[in-house]
C-alpha cells in the first residue's frame, strides 16, 4: 500500500541457532547423557539380546516399564495444552486395573480371553465416565482443573478399594497378561503406547484439532469469540486423558497379574506431568510437543531404572528425579536460554558506540566514548 520500502531487514537463523532454539535439544541431551552414564558404569546396560522372539535388556525394560507413564503423559500433554491439568490419572489407572481384575475373577472362566475382554471393556467404559466427570467439572462448571481433578484423585483410590474390597486381586489370565507383560519382539505395552502417540500425532496434525487445542489453551476467550467450541474441546481432552490412564492401569495390573488399589499408579500423575514439562510443553497452556513428551517420559523411566540398578534406595529416586527435572527446566527457561544466546551476539563494543552527541552536528569526533563507564549497571560491554 503506502510503502515503497521493504519490511525491516530479515535474515534467517542459522542451523546452529535453530538447534539451540529447539526445545527438544536439552531433553535429548539429557536422555543420551543418562544412557551413556549407565553404559560407562555397566556396559551391559546398553546390551540388547534376541531370544525366543523377545528382545531382552535394560533398554527394553525401560521401554516396557515406561509405557504406562508415556501413555498417561500423552493424555496429560493435551490436557496441559488447554491450560488444564489432570491429577486424577493415577487413581483412574488404579480403578481401571481393579475393575478389570475383579471382572475377570468374577467371570465363569477366569482364564478365558472372553473374560479378559469383558474386564477390559468394562474398565475402559468406566474410565470414559470418569473422564466425562472431570470434563464436566472443568468445562461446564468452570472449576479450576487442579481442584476439579483433585476430587477424583482422592476419591478414586477409595473407589478402587471398594471395587477390590480392600484386597489385592490376583488373576491368572494369559490373554490379559499380554497387555503389560507380552512381547511382539518389542514389549506389547510400549507398542500400544507408541501407537497411541502416533495416532494422536496424526490426528492433531492432519486435522485442525491441534490448532484448535492450542488456541483454546493460549486464549480461551479469544477462541470462544472466534467461534471455537472451547468447552467441547476441553471436555474431550479430559475424556481422552482418562482413557489413556485406563489403558495404562490395565498395563500396570496386567504386568503383575494383580490389582493393587493402593499402589497401582501411585504418583504416576507426577511422573506424567514431569514428562510433559521436561518435553518442553508449557504448563501455561498453548503450544505443546508430543515428541517432547516421548523424550520426557523416557528420561523419567531411565532415571527410575538407573537409580534402581545402582542399588540406591527407592526413596532417593524422587530426589534424583527432582535434580534432573530442575536442570532440564532451567535449561529451558527463557532467561537462561537468553543468556546462552546472548553470549554469542556481537556485544556493544566501544567501536560501535558513537560519540555522545548526535552525528549530524558532530564536531567532537574522536572524543573518548563513554562505553567504559564501569559504574553502569548490567552493562553489556564485551567481556571476552
Amino acid at each position, binding site marked *: 500500500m503506502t510503502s515503497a520500502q*521493504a519490511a525491516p*531487514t530479515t535474515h534467517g537463523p542459522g542451523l546452529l541457532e535453530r538447534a539451540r532454539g529447539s526445545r527438544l535439544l536439552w531433553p535429548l541431551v539429557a536422555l543420551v547423557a543418562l544412557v551413556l552414564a549407565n553404559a560407562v558404569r555397566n556396559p551391559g546396560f546398553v546390551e540388547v539380546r534376541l531370544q525366543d522372539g523377545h528382545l531382552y535388556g535394560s533398554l527394553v525394560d525401560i521401554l516396557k516399564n515406561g509405557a504406562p507413564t508415556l501413555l498417561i503423559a500423552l493424555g496429560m500433554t493435551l490436557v496441559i495444552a488447554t491450560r488444564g491439568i489432570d491429577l486424577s490419572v493415577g487413581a483412574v489407572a488404579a480403578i481401571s486395573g481393579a475393575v478389570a481384575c475383579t471382572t475377570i475373577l468374577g467371570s465363569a472362566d477366569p482364564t478365558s480371553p472372553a473374560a479378559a475382554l469383558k474386564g477390559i471393556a468394562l474398565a475402559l467404559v468406566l474410565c470414559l465416565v470418569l473422564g466425562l466427570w472431570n470434563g464436566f467439572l472443568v468445562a461446564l462448571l468452570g472449576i479450576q482443573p487442579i481442584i476439579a481433578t483433585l476430587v477424583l484423585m482422592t476419591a478414586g483410590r477409595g473407589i478402587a478399594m471398594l471395587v477390590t474390597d480392600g484386597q489385592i486381586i490376583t488373576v491368572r489370565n494369559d490373554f490379559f497378561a499380554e497387555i503389560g507383560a507380552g512381547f511382539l519382539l518389542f514389549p506389547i505395552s510400549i507398542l500400544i503406547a507408541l501407537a497411541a502417540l502416533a495416532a494422536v500425532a496424526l490426528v492433531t496434525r492432519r486435522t485442525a484439532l491441534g*490448532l484448535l487445542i492450542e*488456541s483454546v489453551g*493460549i486464549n480461551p476467550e479469544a477462541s470462544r469469540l472466534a467461534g471455537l467450541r472451547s468447552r467441547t474441546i476441553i471436555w474431550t481432552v479430559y475424556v481422552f486423558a482418562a482413557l489413556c490412564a485406563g489403558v495404562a492401569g490395565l498395563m500396570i495390573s496386567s504386568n503383575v497379574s494383580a490389582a493393587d488399589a493402593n499402589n497401582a499408579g501411585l504418583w504416576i500423575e507426577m511422573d506424567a506431568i514431569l514428562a510433559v514439562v521436561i518435553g518442553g510443553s508449557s504448563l501455561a497452556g498453548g503450544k505443546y510437543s508430543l515428541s517432547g513428551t516421548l523424550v520426557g517420559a523416557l528420561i523419567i523411566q531411565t532415571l527410575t531404572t538407573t537409580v534402581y540398578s545402582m542399588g540406591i534406595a527407592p526413596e532417593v529416586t524422587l530426589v534424583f528425579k527432582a535434580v534432573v527435572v530442575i536442570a532440564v527446566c532451567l535449561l529451558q527457561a527463557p532467561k537462561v536460554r537468553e543468556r546462552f544466546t546472548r553470549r554469542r551476539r556481537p556485544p556493544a563494543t566501544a567501536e560501535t*558506540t558513537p560519540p555522545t552527541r*548526535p552525528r549530524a552536528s558532530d564536531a567532537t569526533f574522536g572524543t573518548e566514548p563513554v562505553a567504559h563507564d564501569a559504574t553502569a*549497571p548490567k552493562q553489556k560491554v564485551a567481556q571476552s
Partner: protein
Amino acid sequence: MTDTSSTTVAPAGRPGVSGDPVVAMQAITMEFPGVRALEDVDFRLFPGEVHALMGENGAGKSTLIKVLTGVYTATAGTTELRGERIAFSGPAEAQASGVSTVYQEVNLCPNLSVAENILLGREPRRLGSIDMGATRSRAAELLRRMGLDIDPGSILAEHPIAIQQLVAIARAVAVDAQVLILDEPTSSLDQDEVAELFRIMRHLRDEGVAILFVSHFLEQVYEIADRMTVLRNGRLVGEHLTRDLTRLQLVSAMIGRELGVLEEVERLAADAADAAEVTGGGDRAPLLEATGLGRRGSIAPFDLRIAAGEVVGLAGLLGSGRTELARLLFGADRADSGEVRVDGRVVSLRTPRSAIASGIAFCSEDRKGEGILADLSIRDNLVLAMQAARGWARPIPRRTKDELVEKWMTALDIRPKNPDALVGKLSGGNQQKVLLARWLVTRPRLLILDEPTRGIDIGAKAQIQKLVAELAAEGMAVVYISAELEEVARLAHRVVVLKDRAKVAELDGSASVDEIMALIATADGDVRTEQVAS
C-alpha cells in the same frame, strides 16, 4: 521539502526547553531473531517537552521505548539518563529511576481492583500492612484528576479497554516521574478524555517532566507535541520542531515518499465516502432485525435493522453501550430480552458460534484479551475463525490457506510479510490488521467492527476504510464502532446514537459530526429509539 530528511535541530525547542537532554539514546540497534527492528537510531528527550515519536506501523516506536525502559536489551548502542550511562534490567528499575511508562498493550492485573492497580507496589501502608482505605481514597483522587468517574474498588476487568487505558495512565502519572512515556495512550479514547489527558500532560510538562508520546492521530500530535522524531523501517529519519514541519512533510517522512501521500489518503477517504454514498440499505428487506434486544445491566432493550450493503455506525461516549450492543448481536453476551431475526427468521444467538453460523462476525476492540492468539503464527491466526466454522475434521487445504494468507497479508500490508511470524511479536498496528483479516477471510454477511482502526497508521487506516466501503458495496452489512466520529460519519449510511447504555437516536448518513456530537451531548437517556431518518 528536502528538509524532511535533515537529522537534527538545535536542542532548544519550545521556549523553556534548553540544556541537556534527560534521555539520550545513541546508535541503538535492536535485532530479534530474523528481524532488525531498530538500526543505528539516535533519540533525545529534553526536560519540559512533549516529544512525539512518529512512524508507520512496525517502524520501531514501541521497540525503542522498550529498549529505553529495559524490557529489551539493545543489540548495540547506549542509553543515558541525566548524562549517566544506564541499562535497566526491566520496567521496575526504570520506574524506580523516574521513568514511568504506559505501554501500548495495557498490562495491568485484570483481577485486582482499580485502586490496587493504580497503586500496586506502592500502596499506603499502616502497621506494615496495606491500608485499603487510604489506597482507595488516594486512587479516587488520582482518578478524579483524570476526570474519571468510576469506583476505585471495582475490579479492573469489568471495565472496557478505554477505561483500563486511563487507569494505566493514572498509574503512570501517580509517580513523580521525570520522564513519562505514553505509547498510543489515546488509541481508544474519546475527545473528552483526550482533552483531559492533554491538560494533565501540559501541566506535567510545565513542571519540567519530559514526555514521550506516540499516536497515529496527526491532529493530536500537532496539538500537543513540541518536537518530534520520525522513524521509518527501524531507521531514524529526522528530529524536528513540530512547528517546522507541515503535515505533508511529516507524512512523507514517515512513509518515505515525497509527494501526494496525504492527497492519496484523502482521496481514499473520499472514495470510501463515495462508495458509501452509492450503496446503502434503503428500503431493502433487512438482513438482521433486532427487536427489544437487551441485557440487564449491560444495555437497555433496543430495536435495530440492518440491510445488506448497509454500514451502520454506532456513536456514543465511553461507556454508552456501543460495545455492549455489538456483543449482544454476536452472542458474545447472552440477551435476556428481545429477539433477533436474520432474513426474517428468528435465530437464537446464544453463543458466538451460533452467530457465526448465521453469517455474523465480530472484531473485538480488545485485541490482546479477546482477539489475537499471541503464540500462534500469522497464518494460524488468519484462518482460525474459518477453520472453527468448518470444524476440526475438515482442515483447510494447505494451498487454499496459503492463497488466503497471501491475499490478505498483501491487501492489508501486514508486516513483516512472513506468515510464520508469531502474532505476539508483531507491532500493535499489524496485530490489529491480522485480527481484521481473520474475519474478512470468513466473508461474513454482517461484519461488526469494534474500533477496527485502533492503533493503525494513517495510510493503512484510509485503506481499511476504503475496504469497508467496498465490501459494503458488494453487499456486506457492516456495524462500525469508532471513537473517531469523523470515521463514523464518513462511512455510515445510518448512525445509531447511544447514551447511558441505551439507544437514543438514529440519524441518516448525511448527518455531520457536529450533529452527532450535539446528540451525544444532549440526548436524554430516557428517550427511546426515535427514528430521525425516515
